[in-house]
């Protein structure tokens, strides 16, 4: 079963994602980081197979954290989770920094699972 680290300042979003992941029986939640800085620490302690990370967070935003995570581990599989995914420059920047793709909110359960299965 693949381990997923959820990075989002919203408890509600983390709960949504946990539920989607649990419903598949293919993924388990490795942990929940509430900002980019926590994600960097938890990546080392939880060793997730995948990271689902919000873009807009306090303390350290998702793109800054993504840059650091990819520098630490160029093979890291990071999916950006955001309602801002459609904004062209943010979207392109996330891909350039190494994100595998961007998932839009509100979530489409099957869409999220299909995306994660592909990675």
């Amino acid at each position, binding site marked *: 079963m693949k381990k997923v680290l959820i990075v989002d*300042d*919203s*408890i*509600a*979003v983390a*709960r*949504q994602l946990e*539920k989607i992941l649990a419903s598949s029986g293919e993924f388990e939640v490795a942990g929940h980081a509430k900002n980019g800085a926590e994600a960097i620490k938890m990546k080392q302690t939880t060793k997730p197979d995948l990271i689902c990370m919000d873009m*807009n*967070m*306090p303390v350290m935003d998702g793109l800054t954290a993504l840059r650091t995570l990819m520098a630490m581990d160029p093979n890291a599989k990071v999916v950006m989770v*955001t*309602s*801002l*995914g*459609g*904004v*062209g*420059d943010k*979207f*392109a920047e996330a*891909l*350039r920094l190494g994100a*595998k*793709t*961007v*998932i*839009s*909110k*509100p979530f*489409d359960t099957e*869409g999220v699972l*299909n*995306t994660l299965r*592909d990675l």
Partner: protein
Amino acid sequence: MAVKFFGQFLLEQRAVKQEDLLKAIELQETTNLKFGATALAMGLISLTAFERVHDAQRLEDLKFGDMAIKLGILTEEQVTQVLIRQKNNHLYIGEALVRIGALSSESLKHYLEAFKEDQAPYVVDRIVIPSGLPHPQMWEICADLTFKMLLRVAGLSTRPSASQISDRLDPVFLVGVMPFKGTVQGRYALGVTEATRLAIAKAILKEESVDGESEEVLNDTVLEFVNIVCGNIAAKAAQMGVSFEIDPPYTHFASAGPLVAVAGERILTFPIHVADGDPICLALFIHG
């Protein structure tokens, strides 16, 4: 469903690979020149004049063409010529993908149709904005997407009243506030009742009952709803050339009193009645 760009839609549909999309974006960036570079390429301005316009833009917030007119470097007619050239030569992401061989022309047609259908629910309906406010189309999008998201995400049918300029927002129960800055600047605020908060919480958490949930979680669902709406507004606005960043949202409780405008802000309110008569309110604190 959400407002999105065609490239993102293609990725979600697994029609293209991430690396091909990046190549196509790079091709777009080298093909779609900015206004100043297009004017240079057309021989309408010299490099010295180009740099003069750029320097002046650091001191005054004007678009390149407007500044060039102000400095007497370009005429209005020449600015129009540059805009037409930009429009005619614009390479869209779908065409760029075809050019690099990542998508066939037939597939492009198919996915464009599917994309149009996917995005149809987000086409802006006509909402009247009081005269005198800057960027009226932007506020129209804010109101329209709020009503649509209340229905599509939270399942709440709404009956909006006419918008009006106010000097404060009196919260009934809780307000989710999201600051934004960029081409437009201000705060998006959605004031909800306790009943509407519950409806939003059920929808966001996808639960039949949220009876056992803490206040923190319930309030967080309202903030997440505001986050989703504002993110979608930003995406829609970007498609129209208006860009802004959103900051993390925060809560304002009725117990803290009214939300008032800070210096330089005007408040545009949209009183909304949910189908069961519950009164909620969208307020846009507009700077400038």
